[in-house]
Protein backbone atom coordinates (compact mmCIF):
# COMPACT_ATOMS: atom_id res chain seq x y z
CA UNK A 1 0.00 0.00 0.00
CA UNK A 2 2.72 2.40 1.04
CA UNK A 3 4.75 1.10 -1.87
CA UNK A 4 2.19 2.13 -4.45
CA UNK A 5 1.67 5.63 -3.02
CA UNK A 6 5.41 6.24 -2.78
CA UNK A 7 6.01 5.06 -6.32
CA UNK A 8 3.08 7.10 -7.51
CA UNK A 9 4.47 10.23 -5.88
CA UNK A 10 7.86 9.67 -7.46
CA UNK A 11 6.37 9.28 -10.90
CA UNK A 12 4.25 12.43 -10.53
CA UNK A 13 7.02 14.80 -9.37
CA UNK A 14 10.15 13.88 -11.29
CA UNK A 15 11.74 17.37 -11.12
CA UNK A 16 11.71 17.79 -7.34
CA UNK A 17 15.17 16.29 -7.04
CA UNK A 18 16.06 16.84 -3.36
CA UNK A 19 12.67 15.71 -2.07
CA UNK A 20 12.97 12.62 -4.21
CA UNK A 21 16.38 11.85 -2.80
CA UNK A 22 15.18 12.32 0.78
CA UNK A 23 12.28 9.99 0.14
CA UNK A 24 14.60 7.45 -1.41
CA UNK A 25 16.89 7.60 1.61
CA UNK A 26 13.94 7.12 3.95
CA UNK A 27 12.64 4.14 2.00
CA UNK A 28 16.12 2.64 2.05
CA UNK A 29 16.45 3.20 5.80
CA UNK A 30 13.06 1.61 6.53
CA UNK A 31 14.04 -1.36 4.40
CA UNK A 32 17.34 -1.73 6.25
CA UNK A 33 15.58 -1.49 9.62
CA UNK A 34 13.11 -4.21 8.66
CA UNK A 35 15.95 -6.42 7.45
CA UNK A 36 17.76 -5.96 10.74
CA UNK A 37 14.58 -6.78 12.64
CA UNK A 38 14.10 -10.00 10.65
CA UNK A 39 17.70 -10.99 11.24
CA UNK A 40 17.28 -10.44 14.98
CA UNK A 41 14.00 -12.39 15.01
CA UNK A 42 15.63 -15.35 13.29
CA UNK A 43 18.58 -15.14 15.66
CA UNK A 44 16.14 -15.24 18.59
CA UNK A 45 14.49 -18.39 17.22
CA UNK A 46 17.82 -20.13 16.66
CA UNK A 47 19.08 -18.91 20.04
CA UNK A 48 16.21 -20.57 21.92
CA UNK A 49 16.62 -23.85 20.04
CA UNK A 50 20.35 -23.78 20.79
CA UNK A 51 19.77 -22.84 24.43
CA UNK A 52 17.42 -25.78 24.93
CA UNK A 53 19.78 -28.25 23.24
CA UNK A 54 22.84 -26.96 25.10
CA UNK A 55 21.04 -27.09 28.46
CA UNK A 56 19.89 -30.64 27.73
CA UNK A 57 23.36 -31.83 26.84
CA UNK A 58 25.10 -29.88 29.61
CA UNK A 59 22.80 -31.20 32.35
CA UNK A 60 21.75 -34.52 30.81
CA UNK A 61 24.95 -35.96 29.38
CA UNK A 62 26.84 -36.20 32.72
CA UNK A 63 23.79 -37.96 34.18
CA UNK A 64 23.62 -40.68 31.54
CA UNK A 65 25.45 -43.86 32.53
CA UNK A 66 24.71 -47.58 32.42
CA UNK A 67 22.76 -47.44 35.71
CA UNK A 68 20.13 -45.20 34.14
CA UNK A 69 19.33 -47.87 31.54
CA UNK A 70 19.35 -50.98 33.76
CA UNK A 71 17.81 -49.85 37.08
CA UNK A 72 14.31 -48.82 37.97
CA UNK A 73 13.29 -46.20 40.53
CA UNK A 74 15.21 -45.87 43.81
CA UNK A 75 14.43 -43.27 46.48
CA UNK A 76 16.75 -40.30 46.74
CA UNK A 77 20.25 -41.05 48.07
CA UNK A 78 20.33 -37.82 50.12
CA UNK A 79 23.80 -37.22 48.71
CA UNK A 80 25.32 -40.37 50.23
CA UNK A 81 27.84 -41.74 47.76
CA UNK A 82 27.43 -45.47 48.55
CA UNK A 83 23.62 -45.50 48.48
CA UNK A 84 22.03 -47.32 45.55
CA UNK A 85 21.35 -45.06 42.55
CA UNK A 86 18.12 -45.29 40.60
CA UNK A 87 17.44 -45.30 36.87
CA UNK A 88 14.77 -45.09 34.21
CA UNK A 89 14.45 -48.69 32.97
CA UNK A 90 10.82 -48.92 34.13
CA UNK A 91 9.97 -45.67 32.37
CA UNK A 92 11.74 -46.54 29.11
CA UNK A 93 9.99 -49.92 28.88
CA UNK A 94 6.64 -48.40 29.86
CA UNK A 95 7.00 -45.70 27.21
CA UNK A 96 7.80 -48.24 24.48
CA UNK A 97 4.91 -50.52 25.49
CA UNK A 98 2.33 -47.72 25.62
CA UNK A 99 3.59 -45.87 22.54
CA UNK A 100 3.73 -49.21 20.73
CA UNK A 101 0.12 -49.89 21.63
CA UNK A 102 -0.83 -46.33 20.61
CA UNK A 103 0.72 -46.78 17.16
CA UNK A 104 -0.65 -50.32 16.76
CA UNK A 105 -4.22 -49.23 17.52
CA UNK A 106 -4.16 -45.79 15.92
CA UNK A 107 -2.36 -46.52 12.64
CA UNK A 108 -4.88 -48.89 10.98
CA UNK A 109 -7.76 -46.54 11.81
CA UNK A 110 -5.77 -43.54 10.61
CA UNK A 111 -4.84 -45.25 7.32
CA UNK A 112 -8.46 -46.28 6.67
CA UNK A 113 -9.67 -42.72 7.32
CA UNK A 114 -6.93 -41.27 5.09
CA UNK A 115 -7.90 -43.75 2.36
CA UNK A 116 -11.55 -42.80 2.72
CA UNK A 117 -10.74 -39.09 2.35
CA UNK A 118 -8.46 -39.58 -0.66
CA UNK A 119 -10.11 -42.44 -2.57
CA UNK A 120 -13.82 -42.31 -1.71
CA UNK A 121 -14.81 -38.88 -0.41
CA UNK A 122 -12.63 -36.14 -1.87
CA UNK A 123 -15.46 -33.63 -2.20
CA UNK A 124 -18.43 -35.14 -0.37
CA UNK A 125 -20.05 -33.51 2.65
CA UNK A 126 -19.18 -36.42 4.95
CA UNK A 127 -15.60 -36.40 3.68
CA UNK A 128 -15.21 -32.68 4.35
CA UNK A 129 -16.66 -33.10 7.84
CA UNK A 130 -14.27 -35.95 8.64
CA UNK A 131 -11.30 -33.97 7.27
CA UNK A 132 -12.27 -30.93 9.36
CA UNK A 133 -12.75 -32.92 12.58
CA UNK A 134 -9.48 -34.77 12.07
CA UNK A 135 -7.65 -31.46 11.61
CA UNK A 136 -9.20 -30.09 14.80
CA UNK A 137 -8.20 -33.25 16.71
CA UNK A 138 -4.64 -32.78 15.42
CA UNK A 139 -4.28 -29.59 17.49
CA UNK A 140 -6.80 -30.28 20.27
CA UNK A 141 -5.46 -30.08 23.85
CA UNK A 142 -4.05 -33.52 24.60
CA UNK A 143 -4.96 -33.34 28.28
CA UNK A 144 -8.63 -33.50 27.28
CA UNK A 145 -7.95 -36.84 25.57
CA UNK A 146 -6.68 -37.95 28.98
CA UNK A 147 -9.92 -36.85 30.65
CA UNK A 148 -11.94 -38.66 27.96
CA UNK A 149 -10.10 -41.96 28.42
CA UNK A 150 -10.24 -41.56 32.20
CA UNK A 151 -14.02 -41.44 32.06
CA UNK A 152 -14.26 -44.16 29.41
CA UNK A 153 -11.60 -46.69 30.52
CA UNK A 154 -9.99 -45.84 33.86
CA UNK A 155 -13.22 -45.49 35.86
CA UNK A 156 -14.88 -48.69 34.54
CA UNK A 157 -11.62 -50.65 34.99
CA UNK A 158 -11.28 -49.39 38.53
CA UNK A 159 -7.86 -47.79 38.27
CA UNK A 160 -5.03 -46.33 36.19
CA UNK A 161 -3.66 -48.75 33.60
CA UNK A 162 -1.19 -49.10 30.76
CA UNK A 163 -4.08 -50.04 28.45
CA UNK A 164 -5.75 -46.70 29.14
CA UNK A 165 -2.44 -44.93 28.43
CA UNK A 166 -2.02 -46.77 25.12
CA UNK A 167 -5.59 -45.96 24.08
CA UNK A 168 -5.15 -42.27 24.92
CA UNK A 169 -2.00 -42.18 22.79
CA UNK A 170 -3.78 -43.96 19.92
CA UNK A 171 -6.33 -41.11 19.77
CA UNK A 172 -3.43 -38.70 19.26
CA UNK A 173 -1.91 -40.97 16.57
CA UNK A 174 -5.06 -41.12 14.40
CA UNK A 175 -5.16 -37.52 13.06
CA UNK A 176 -1.39 -37.48 12.36
CA UNK A 177 -1.64 -40.65 10.27
CA UNK A 178 -4.84 -39.42 8.56
CA UNK A 179 -3.12 -36.23 7.43
CA UNK A 180 -0.01 -37.88 5.93
CA UNK A 181 -1.93 -40.83 4.40
CA UNK A 182 -4.38 -38.52 2.65
CA UNK A 183 -1.61 -36.17 1.46
CA UNK A 184 0.49 -39.02 0.11
CA UNK A 185 -2.39 -40.83 -1.62
CA UNK A 186 -3.53 -37.56 -3.22
CA UNK A 187 -0.07 -37.17 -4.78
CA UNK A 188 -0.44 -40.42 -6.73
CA UNK A 189 -1.33 -39.66 -10.37
CA UNK A 190 -4.78 -40.77 -11.48
CA UNK A 191 -3.32 -42.49 -14.55
CA UNK A 192 -1.83 -45.10 -12.22
CA UNK A 193 -5.25 -45.80 -10.70
CA UNK A 194 -6.87 -45.96 -14.15
CA UNK A 195 -4.20 -48.34 -15.43
CA UNK A 196 -4.82 -50.77 -12.57
CA UNK A 197 -8.59 -50.64 -12.89
CA UNK A 198 -8.31 -51.08 -16.67
CA UNK A 199 -6.52 -54.38 -16.04
CA UNK A 200 -9.71 -55.55 -14.37
CA UNK A 201 -8.65 -55.22 -10.73
CA UNK A 202 -11.34 -54.25 -8.24
CA UNK A 203 -10.90 -50.90 -6.51
CA UNK A 204 -9.91 -52.34 -3.14
CA UNK A 205 -7.08 -54.28 -4.77
CA UNK A 206 -6.03 -51.18 -6.67
CA UNK A 207 -5.79 -49.30 -3.35
CA UNK A 208 -4.18 -51.97 -1.18
CA UNK A 209 -1.77 -53.48 -3.73
CA UNK A 210 -0.83 -50.47 -5.86
CA UNK A 211 -1.73 -47.13 -4.27
CA UNK A 212 -0.43 -48.08 -0.81
CA UNK A 213 2.79 -49.33 -2.36
CA UNK A 214 3.30 -46.12 -4.31
CA UNK A 215 2.65 -44.04 -1.18
CA UNK A 216 4.52 -46.35 1.19
CA UNK A 217 7.46 -44.14 2.16
CA UNK A 218 5.16 -41.19 2.86
CA UNK A 219 2.83 -43.31 4.97
CA UNK A 220 5.76 -44.75 6.94
CA UNK A 221 6.90 -41.17 7.53
CA UNK A 222 3.50 -40.36 9.00
CA UNK A 223 3.68 -43.33 11.36
CA UNK A 224 7.21 -42.33 12.46
CA UNK A 225 6.08 -38.75 13.10
CA UNK A 226 3.10 -40.01 15.08
CA UNK A 227 5.41 -42.19 17.19
CA UNK A 228 7.71 -39.22 17.83
CA UNK A 229 4.74 -37.08 18.80
CA UNK A 230 3.33 -39.52 21.38
CA UNK A 231 6.75 -40.46 22.77
CA UNK A 232 6.86 -37.01 24.39
CA UNK A 233 3.20 -36.78 25.45
CA UNK A 234 2.87 -36.29 29.19
CA UNK A 235 -0.50 -34.80 30.04
CA UNK A 236 -2.80 -37.61 28.78
CA UNK A 237 -0.64 -40.29 30.45
CA UNK A 238 -0.76 -38.46 33.77
CA UNK A 239 -4.53 -39.06 33.83
CA UNK A 240 -4.55 -42.59 32.38
CA UNK A 241 -1.47 -44.69 33.23
CA UNK A 242 -0.29 -42.35 36.01
CA UNK A 243 3.14 -43.90 36.68
CA UNK A 244 4.77 -46.67 38.62
CA UNK A 245 8.17 -47.25 40.21
CA UNK A 246 8.99 -50.78 39.10
CA UNK A 247 9.53 -52.63 35.83
CA UNK A 248 6.28 -54.21 34.72
CA UNK A 249 4.78 -55.67 31.55
CA UNK A 250 1.28 -55.82 33.05
CA UNK A 251 -0.77 -53.32 31.09
CA UNK A 252 -3.82 -53.72 33.31
CA UNK A 253 -2.04 -51.86 36.14
CA UNK A 254 -0.58 -48.38 36.44
CA UNK A 255 2.47 -48.08 34.21
CA UNK A 256 5.45 -45.73 34.15
CA UNK A 257 6.41 -43.70 31.09
CA UNK A 258 9.43 -41.58 30.36
CA UNK A 259 7.69 -38.16 30.20
CA UNK A 260 5.60 -38.70 33.34
CA UNK A 261 8.64 -39.99 35.26
CA UNK A 262 10.63 -36.93 34.15
CA UNK A 263 7.80 -34.69 35.33
CA UNK A 264 7.56 -36.36 38.74
CA UNK A 265 11.32 -36.48 39.37
CA UNK A 266 11.98 -32.94 38.09
CA UNK A 267 9.46 -31.63 40.63
CA UNK A 268 10.72 -33.83 43.48
CA UNK A 269 13.22 -31.24 44.76
CA UNK A 270 16.02 -33.82 45.26
CA UNK A 271 19.14 -32.99 43.18
CA UNK A 272 19.93 -36.63 42.38
CA UNK A 273 16.39 -37.32 41.14
CA UNK A 274 16.41 -34.09 39.11
CA UNK A 275 19.65 -35.24 37.51
CA UNK A 276 17.99 -38.50 36.45
CA UNK A 277 15.12 -36.44 35.03
CA UNK A 278 17.64 -34.50 32.90
CA UNK A 279 19.07 -37.80 31.64
CA UNK A 280 15.55 -38.84 30.64
CA UNK A 281 14.90 -35.47 29.00
CA UNK A 282 18.07 -35.78 26.92
CA UNK A 283 17.11 -39.34 25.88
CA UNK A 284 13.61 -38.39 24.83
CA UNK A 285 14.66 -35.28 22.90
CA UNK A 286 17.45 -37.11 21.09
CA UNK A 287 15.02 -39.89 20.17
CA UNK A 288 12.28 -37.54 18.99
CA UNK A 289 14.62 -35.34 16.94
CA UNK A 290 16.33 -38.40 15.38
CA UNK A 291 12.99 -39.91 14.33
CA UNK A 292 11.96 -36.54 12.86
CA UNK A 293 15.17 -36.26 10.87
CA UNK A 294 14.82 -39.85 9.59
CA UNK A 295 11.21 -39.16 8.60
CA UNK A 296 12.26 -36.02 6.71
CA UNK A 297 15.00 -37.87 4.82
CA UNK A 298 12.54 -40.60 3.84
CA UNK A 299 10.11 -37.99 2.54
CA UNK A 300 12.74 -36.01 0.64
CA UNK A 301 13.92 -39.14 -1.20
CA UNK A 302 10.39 -39.67 -2.47
CA UNK A 303 9.94 -36.12 -3.72
Amino acid at each position, binding site marked *: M*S*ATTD*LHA*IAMRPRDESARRARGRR*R*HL*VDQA*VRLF*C*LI*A*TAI*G*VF*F*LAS*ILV*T*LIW*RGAPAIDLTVFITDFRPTTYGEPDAEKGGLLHAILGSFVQAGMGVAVGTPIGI*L*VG*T*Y*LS*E*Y*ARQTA*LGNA*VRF*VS*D*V*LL*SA*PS*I*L*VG*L*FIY*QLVVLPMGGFSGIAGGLALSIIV*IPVVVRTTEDMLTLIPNTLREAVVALG*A*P*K*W*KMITLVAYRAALSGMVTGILLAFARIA*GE*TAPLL*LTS*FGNNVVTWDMSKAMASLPVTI*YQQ*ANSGFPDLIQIA*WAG*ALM*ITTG*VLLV*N*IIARTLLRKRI
Partner: protein
Amino acid sequence: MKSSAIAPARRSSGSFGDIVFEWLCRGAGVFVLLLLGGIIVTLFIGGLPAFRQFGLDFLTSTRWDPVEGREQFGGAVAIVGTVMSSILAIILAVPVAFGIAFFLTELAPPWLRRPMGTAIELLAAVPSIIFGMWGLFVLVPFIQRNIQLPFGDALGTLPLVGFLFQSTNFAGTSIFAASLVLAIMILPFIAATMRDVFEQVPPVYKESAYGLGATRWEVMGGVVIPYTRISVVGGIMLGLGRALGETMAVTFVIGNANRIATSFFDPTTTIASVIAMEFPESLAGGLQQSSLFALGFLLFLISFIVLASSRYLLRPRLKG
Protein backbone atom coordinates in the same frame (compact mmCIF):
# COMPACT_ATOMS: atom_id res chain seq x y z
CA MET B 1 -17.58 -70.12 -22.95
CA LYS B 2 -15.29 -71.27 -20.18
CA SER B 3 -13.98 -67.79 -19.53
CA SER B 4 -17.44 -66.23 -19.44
CA ALA B 5 -18.38 -68.74 -16.75
CA ILE B 6 -15.48 -67.64 -14.61
CA ALA B 7 -15.61 -63.91 -15.23
CA PRO B 8 -18.92 -63.09 -13.47
CA ALA B 9 -17.85 -65.09 -10.42
CA ARG B 10 -14.61 -63.17 -10.24
CA ARG B 11 -16.31 -59.84 -10.68
CA SER B 12 -18.78 -60.58 -7.92
CA SER B 13 -15.96 -61.50 -5.50
CA GLY B 14 -14.23 -58.28 -6.49
CA SER B 15 -17.33 -56.20 -5.94
CA PHE B 16 -17.93 -57.92 -2.59
CA GLY B 17 -14.40 -56.96 -1.53
CA ASP B 18 -15.07 -53.45 -2.80
CA ILE B 19 -18.18 -53.10 -0.67
CA VAL B 20 -16.43 -54.41 2.45
CA PHE B 21 -13.40 -52.17 1.97
CA GLU B 22 -15.40 -49.06 1.21
CA TRP B 23 -17.54 -49.57 4.32
CA LEU B 24 -14.42 -50.19 6.41
CA CYS B 25 -13.01 -46.85 5.25
CA ARG B 26 -16.30 -45.02 5.70
CA GLY B 27 -16.77 -46.61 9.12
CA ALA B 28 -13.31 -45.37 10.18
CA GLY B 29 -14.26 -41.88 8.97
CA VAL B 30 -17.49 -41.92 10.95
CA PHE B 31 -15.52 -43.22 13.94
CA VAL B 32 -13.40 -40.04 13.89
CA LEU B 33 -16.60 -37.94 13.98
CA LEU B 34 -17.91 -40.06 16.87
CA LEU B 35 -14.59 -39.61 18.67
CA LEU B 36 -14.93 -35.85 18.71
CA GLY B 37 -18.59 -36.12 19.73
CA GLY B 38 -17.64 -38.64 22.40
CA ILE B 39 -15.03 -36.32 23.88
CA ILE B 40 -17.50 -33.41 24.08
CA VAL B 41 -20.27 -35.54 25.61
CA THR B 42 -17.93 -37.25 28.09
CA LEU B 43 -16.49 -33.96 29.33
CA PHE B 44 -19.96 -32.48 29.65
CA ILE B 45 -21.34 -35.47 31.57
CA GLY B 46 -18.29 -35.42 33.83
CA GLY B 47 -18.80 -31.73 34.53
CA LEU B 48 -22.58 -31.92 34.95
CA PRO B 49 -22.59 -32.23 38.79
CA ALA B 50 -20.42 -29.12 39.06
CA PHE B 51 -22.57 -27.16 36.60
CA ARG B 52 -25.69 -28.24 38.56
CA GLN B 53 -24.18 -27.29 41.89
CA PHE B 54 -22.73 -23.91 40.99
CA GLY B 55 -24.64 -22.88 37.87
CA LEU B 56 -23.35 -19.75 36.17
CA ASP B 57 -21.35 -18.85 39.30
CA PHE B 58 -18.85 -21.46 38.11
CA LEU B 59 -17.79 -19.06 35.37
CA THR B 60 -17.45 -15.99 37.58
CA SER B 61 -16.40 -17.24 41.01
CA THR B 62 -12.71 -17.13 41.89
CA ARG B 63 -13.01 -19.43 44.91
CA TRP B 64 -11.39 -22.84 44.56
CA ASP B 65 -11.56 -24.63 47.88
CA PRO B 66 -11.14 -28.42 47.85
CA VAL B 67 -11.12 -28.78 51.66
CA GLU B 68 -13.75 -31.32 52.70
CA GLY B 69 -16.91 -29.91 54.21
CA ARG B 70 -16.66 -26.45 52.66
CA GLU B 71 -16.00 -27.40 49.04
CA GLN B 72 -16.54 -24.52 46.69
CA PHE B 73 -15.32 -24.36 43.12
CA GLY B 74 -15.23 -21.50 40.63
CA GLY B 75 -13.31 -21.54 37.38
CA ALA B 76 -12.77 -17.81 36.82
CA VAL B 77 -9.06 -17.78 37.77
CA ALA B 78 -8.18 -20.69 35.50
CA ILE B 79 -10.28 -19.34 32.60
CA VAL B 80 -8.78 -15.84 32.86
CA GLY B 81 -5.28 -17.32 33.31
CA THR B 82 -5.66 -19.49 30.20
CA VAL B 83 -6.86 -16.66 28.00
CA MET B 84 -4.39 -14.08 29.34
CA SER B 85 -1.30 -16.27 29.14
CA SER B 86 -2.20 -17.33 25.58
CA ILE B 87 -2.86 -13.79 24.38
CA LEU B 88 0.39 -12.56 25.93
CA ALA B 89 2.19 -15.45 24.23
CA ILE B 90 0.68 -14.47 20.87
CA ILE B 91 1.77 -10.83 21.39
CA LEU B 92 5.32 -11.99 22.08
CA ALA B 93 5.47 -14.64 19.34
CA VAL B 94 3.80 -13.04 16.31
CA PRO B 95 6.36 -10.28 15.54
CA VAL B 96 9.25 -12.73 15.90
CA ALA B 97 7.47 -15.38 13.80
CA PHE B 98 6.76 -12.78 11.12
CA GLY B 99 10.42 -11.76 11.11
CA ILE B 100 11.52 -15.38 10.72
CA ALA B 101 9.03 -16.04 7.91
CA PHE B 102 10.06 -12.85 6.08
CA PHE B 103 13.72 -13.75 6.53
CA LEU B 104 13.20 -17.29 5.23
CA THR B 105 11.17 -16.29 2.14
CA GLU B 106 12.80 -13.03 1.02
CA LEU B 107 16.10 -12.28 2.72
CA ALA B 108 18.01 -15.49 3.41
CA PRO B 109 20.48 -16.74 0.79
CA PRO B 110 19.09 -19.92 -0.83
CA TRP B 111 21.68 -22.22 0.74
CA LEU B 112 20.59 -21.10 4.22
CA ARG B 113 16.82 -21.45 3.71
CA ARG B 114 16.51 -25.20 3.98
CA PRO B 115 18.69 -25.79 7.10
CA MET B 116 17.14 -22.78 8.86
CA GLY B 117 13.63 -23.89 7.99
CA THR B 118 14.41 -27.39 9.24
CA ALA B 119 15.85 -26.02 12.49
CA ILE B 120 12.69 -24.00 13.15
CA GLU B 121 10.53 -27.03 12.38
CA LEU B 122 12.59 -29.23 14.71
CA LEU B 123 11.88 -26.73 17.48
CA ALA B 124 8.20 -27.62 16.93
CA ALA B 125 8.95 -31.32 17.45
CA VAL B 126 10.57 -30.91 20.89
CA PRO B 127 8.15 -32.37 23.49
CA SER B 128 6.42 -29.81 25.68
CA ILE B 129 7.79 -31.30 28.90
CA ILE B 130 11.31 -30.37 27.73
CA PHE B 131 10.19 -26.75 27.35
CA GLY B 132 8.76 -26.99 30.85
CA MET B 133 11.99 -28.27 32.40
CA TRP B 134 14.08 -25.76 30.49
CA GLY B 135 11.66 -23.03 31.60
CA LEU B 136 11.81 -24.06 35.25
CA PHE B 137 15.58 -24.53 35.54
CA VAL B 138 16.88 -21.93 33.05
CA LEU B 139 14.26 -19.31 32.22
CA VAL B 140 12.65 -18.86 35.64
CA PRO B 141 15.92 -18.14 37.52
CA PHE B 142 16.89 -15.76 34.69
CA ILE B 143 13.58 -13.89 34.93
CA GLN B 144 13.86 -13.79 38.71
CA ARG B 145 17.33 -12.21 38.71
CA ASN B 146 17.66 -10.27 35.49
CA ILE B 147 14.16 -9.20 34.50
CA GLN B 148 11.82 -8.97 37.47
CA LEU B 149 14.16 -7.04 39.80
CA PRO B 150 15.41 -4.33 37.40
CA PHE B 151 12.09 -3.96 35.58
CA GLY B 152 10.09 -4.09 38.80
CA ASP B 153 12.24 -1.30 40.25
CA ALA B 154 12.37 0.84 37.15
CA LEU B 155 8.82 0.48 35.86
CA GLY B 156 6.94 -0.28 39.08
CA THR B 157 6.79 3.41 39.99
CA LEU B 158 5.21 4.45 36.70
CA PRO B 159 1.75 5.99 37.07
CA LEU B 160 -1.23 3.95 35.80
CA VAL B 161 0.74 0.97 34.46
CA GLY B 162 3.21 0.56 37.34
CA PHE B 163 1.15 -2.16 39.03
CA LEU B 164 1.75 -4.42 36.04
CA PHE B 165 5.38 -4.72 37.07
CA GLN B 166 4.97 -4.84 40.85
CA SER B 167 4.65 -8.17 42.54
CA THR B 168 5.17 -9.62 45.99
CA ASN B 169 6.05 -12.92 44.37
CA PHE B 170 9.79 -13.37 43.90
CA ALA B 171 9.83 -17.07 43.00
CA GLY B 172 10.11 -16.24 39.30
CA THR B 173 7.30 -18.66 38.42
CA SER B 174 4.74 -16.29 36.95
CA ILE B 175 2.32 -15.61 34.13
CA PHE B 176 5.17 -13.84 32.32
CA ALA B 177 7.36 -16.95 32.48
CA ALA B 178 4.44 -19.07 31.24
CA SER B 179 3.69 -16.71 28.35
CA LEU B 180 7.35 -16.60 27.34
CA VAL B 181 7.62 -20.40 27.29
CA LEU B 182 4.32 -20.62 25.37
CA ALA B 183 5.56 -18.00 22.90
CA ILE B 184 8.72 -20.03 22.23
CA MET B 185 6.62 -23.18 21.79
CA ILE B 186 4.14 -21.72 19.29
CA LEU B 187 6.79 -19.68 17.45
CA PRO B 188 7.69 -22.48 15.02
CA PHE B 189 4.03 -23.25 14.22
CA ILE B 190 3.23 -19.65 13.34
CA ALA B 191 6.52 -19.07 11.52
CA ALA B 192 6.14 -22.25 9.43
CA THR B 193 2.54 -21.41 8.47
CA MET B 194 3.48 -17.83 7.55
CA ARG B 195 6.45 -19.02 5.48
CA ASP B 196 4.23 -21.51 3.61
CA VAL B 197 1.59 -18.89 2.75
CA PHE B 198 4.20 -16.27 1.80
CA GLU B 199 5.67 -18.79 -0.63
CA GLN B 200 2.27 -19.21 -2.29
CA VAL B 201 2.27 -15.65 -3.60
CA PRO B 202 2.77 -15.90 -7.38
CA PRO B 203 6.31 -14.68 -8.13
CA VAL B 204 5.05 -12.51 -10.99
CA TYR B 205 3.23 -10.20 -8.52
CA LYS B 206 6.37 -9.67 -6.49
CA GLU B 207 8.52 -9.26 -9.57
CA SER B 208 6.18 -6.59 -10.92
CA ALA B 209 6.58 -4.57 -7.71
CA TYR B 210 10.35 -5.03 -7.72
CA GLY B 211 10.35 -3.92 -11.33
CA LEU B 212 8.69 -0.65 -10.31
CA GLY B 213 11.58 -0.05 -7.90
CA ALA B 214 9.93 -1.16 -4.67
CA THR B 215 12.18 -2.24 -1.81
CA ARG B 216 11.81 -5.67 -0.21
CA TRP B 217 9.81 -4.25 2.67
CA GLU B 218 7.50 -2.38 0.29
CA VAL B 219 6.90 -5.61 -1.63
CA MET B 220 6.12 -7.32 1.71
CA GLY B 221 3.76 -4.60 2.92
CA GLY B 222 2.22 -3.76 -0.45
CA VAL B 223 1.94 -7.14 -2.17
CA VAL B 224 2.65 -10.17 0.02
CA ILE B 225 0.71 -9.22 3.16
CA PRO B 226 -2.46 -8.01 1.38
CA TYR B 227 -2.39 -11.21 -0.70
CA THR B 228 -1.95 -13.53 2.30
CA ARG B 229 -3.51 -11.69 5.26
CA ILE B 230 -6.39 -14.15 5.75
CA SER B 231 -4.02 -17.11 5.92
CA VAL B 232 -1.67 -15.18 8.21
CA VAL B 233 -4.53 -14.64 10.66
CA GLY B 234 -5.33 -18.36 10.31
CA GLY B 235 -1.77 -19.24 11.26
CA ILE B 236 -1.93 -16.97 14.31
CA MET B 237 -5.20 -18.61 15.38
CA LEU B 238 -3.55 -22.02 15.02
CA GLY B 239 -0.81 -20.85 17.40
CA LEU B 240 -3.43 -19.47 19.78
CA GLY B 241 -5.26 -22.81 19.76
CA ARG B 242 -2.04 -24.60 20.66
CA ALA B 243 -1.23 -22.14 23.45
CA LEU B 244 -4.68 -22.45 25.04
CA GLY B 245 -4.41 -26.20 25.52
CA GLU B 246 -0.72 -26.49 26.37
CA THR B 247 -0.31 -28.28 29.68
CA MET B 248 3.10 -29.46 30.81
CA ALA B 249 5.25 -26.48 29.87
CA VAL B 250 2.82 -24.13 31.62
CA THR B 251 2.40 -26.30 34.72
CA PHE B 252 6.15 -26.13 35.35
CA VAL B 253 6.47 -22.35 35.29
CA ILE B 254 3.16 -20.61 36.07
CA GLY B 255 3.27 -21.07 39.84
CA ASN B 256 -0.16 -22.74 40.11
CA ALA B 257 -1.74 -20.25 42.50
CA ASN B 258 -5.49 -19.77 42.53
CA ARG B 259 -5.51 -16.02 42.17
CA ILE B 260 -5.92 -13.70 39.24
CA ALA B 261 -2.60 -12.18 38.19
CA THR B 262 -2.61 -8.38 38.33
CA SER B 263 1.08 -8.15 37.47
CA PHE B 264 3.26 -9.87 34.89
CA PHE B 265 5.24 -11.41 37.73
CA ASP B 266 2.30 -12.83 39.69
CA PRO B 267 1.70 -16.58 39.75
CA THR B 268 -1.69 -17.81 38.53
CA THR B 269 -3.01 -20.96 36.86
CA THR B 270 -4.58 -22.19 33.64
CA ILE B 271 -7.32 -24.73 32.95
CA ALA B 272 -4.90 -27.32 31.58
CA SER B 273 -2.41 -26.96 34.42
CA VAL B 274 -5.04 -27.06 37.19
CA ILE B 275 -6.32 -30.32 35.64
CA ALA B 276 -2.79 -31.75 35.50
CA MET B 277 -2.02 -30.70 39.07
CA GLU B 278 -5.22 -31.73 40.82
CA PHE B 279 -6.92 -34.41 38.76
CA PRO B 280 -4.65 -37.38 39.62
CA GLU B 281 -5.25 -36.76 43.34
CA SER B 282 -8.95 -35.90 43.17
CA LEU B 283 -11.56 -38.34 44.44
CA ALA B 284 -13.36 -40.28 41.69
CA GLY B 285 -16.90 -38.97 41.37
CA GLY B 286 -16.27 -36.10 43.80
CA LEU B 287 -17.23 -32.48 43.30
CA GLN B 288 -13.60 -31.44 42.72
CA GLN B 289 -13.20 -33.98 39.93
CA SER B 290 -16.47 -32.88 38.39
CA SER B 291 -15.33 -29.24 38.52
CA LEU B 292 -12.14 -30.23 36.70
CA PHE B 293 -14.23 -31.99 34.03
CA ALA B 294 -16.34 -28.83 33.76
CA LEU B 295 -13.17 -26.78 33.22
CA GLY B 296 -12.03 -29.32 30.61
CA PHE B 297 -15.36 -28.91 28.81
CA LEU B 298 -14.92 -25.12 28.76
CA LEU B 299 -11.34 -25.48 27.48
CA PHE B 300 -12.62 -27.76 24.75
CA LEU B 301 -15.23 -25.20 23.69
CA ILE B 302 -12.71 -22.34 23.61
CA SER B 303 -10.04 -24.22 21.69
CA PHE B 304 -12.58 -25.79 19.32
CA ILE B 305 -13.84 -22.34 18.32
CA VAL B 306 -10.29 -21.03 17.84
CA LEU B 307 -9.07 -24.10 15.91
CA ALA B 308 -12.22 -24.25 13.77
CA SER B 309 -11.86 -20.61 12.74
CA SER B 310 -8.17 -21.21 12.03
CA ARG B 311 -9.10 -24.10 9.71
CA TYR B 312 -11.77 -21.96 8.06
CA LEU B 313 -9.31 -19.11 7.42
CA LEU B 314 -6.58 -21.40 6.11
CA ARG B 315 -8.86 -23.53 3.92
CA PRO B 316 -9.14 -21.52 0.65
CA ARG B 317 -5.39 -21.01 0.44
CA LEU B 318 -4.69 -24.69 1.10
CA LYS B 319 -6.78 -25.67 -1.90
CA GLY B 320 -5.41 -23.03 -4.24
